[in-house]
């Protein structure tokens, strides 16, 4: 039982990392201590009670985290801005980078071959996902890759729009540039967060 409660306390401490930094710095240690004491109490009556207690705590976390983030947002601290930017970047990196990787892998498995451009795009998507862990390096690679894709998109749009009206050519180039824009934005956001966190 001691091992289980110890593991649950460690897990809870990890989950506390989801709270905004200001709140975490102020109450994180206390919350962990209170959780450990309450869990020990619950565990004294049995494993089922300890599990119920832990589940109740975990279930209450999302609402409490949102409330804490909202309150910290009202204070508009610098730390909160970085925290918010980090989660925006992380959330988008996972769904966007993951989706692109999934599509690229699906195509690769279906056709069995890969061209240079798709390989580059996959590498950039991987950088974006890895930026979750290595913010500055992943962000820099994703942003540079995004800029490269934007440039290629512009050139491609320019080529495809040859012979069209100026407006049509401009629009084609714009659509081409949009290709790498998400990587540029989310990679840049990771880079910003990484640099701010270091500062």
């Amino acid at each position, binding site marked *: 039982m001691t091992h289980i409660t110890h593991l649950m306390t460690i897990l809870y401490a990890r989950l506390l990392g989801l709270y905004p930094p200001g*709140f975490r710095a*102020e*109450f994180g*240690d*206390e*919350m962990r*201590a*209170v*959780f450990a*004491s*309450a869990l020990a109490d619950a565990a004294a009556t049995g494993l089922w009670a300890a599990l119920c207690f832990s589940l*109740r*705590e975990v279930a*209450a*976390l999302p*609402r*409490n*985290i949102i*409330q*804490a983030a909202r*309150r910290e947002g009202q204070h508009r601290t610098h730390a909160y801005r970085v925290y918010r930017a980090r989660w925006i970047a992380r959330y988008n990196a996972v769904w966007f980078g993951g989706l692109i990787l999934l599509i690229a892998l699906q195509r690769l498995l279906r056709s069995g071959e890969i061209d240079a451009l798709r390989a580059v795009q996959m590498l950039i998507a991987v950088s974006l996902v890895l930026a979750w862990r290595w913010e500055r390096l992943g962000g820099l690679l994703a942003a540079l890759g995004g800029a490269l894709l934007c440039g290629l998109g512009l050139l491609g749009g320019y080529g495809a729009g040859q012979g069209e009206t100026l407006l049509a050519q401009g629009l084609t180039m714009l659509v081409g540039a949009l290709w790498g824009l998400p990587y540029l934005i989310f990679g840049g956001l990771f880079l910003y967060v990484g640099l701010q966190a270091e500062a």
Partner: protein
Amino acid sequence: MTMDEHLPLSEATLFILLSLAQEPRHGYAILKDVETLSQGRITLSTGTLYGALSRLLDQGWIERLADDLPEDSGRPRKRYRLTDIGQRIVRAETERLERLAVVARFRLAKESS
């Protein structure tokens, strides 16, 4: 801003403030006391408790005591205390509930007679 503008308090907030009305307490003691005061009806999660404490600290209704009592494990335990404003808020809420109870009893007595 008058006292009444803060009222009514949520049940959880009232119980947290009541828990601190007699003496300063640390987080876990508040958690247990709220459960006892509410006769087991309100079981606060750790996150809910500290969310409420954070808000009450910001509002100036409670304060954190400077002297941290070391726990058995050696970790510091911060205690919280009701401020003067907090005490006035609790009194105002208690009076509001009393008025409500008087009206309710009066109306029920009239209906049963």
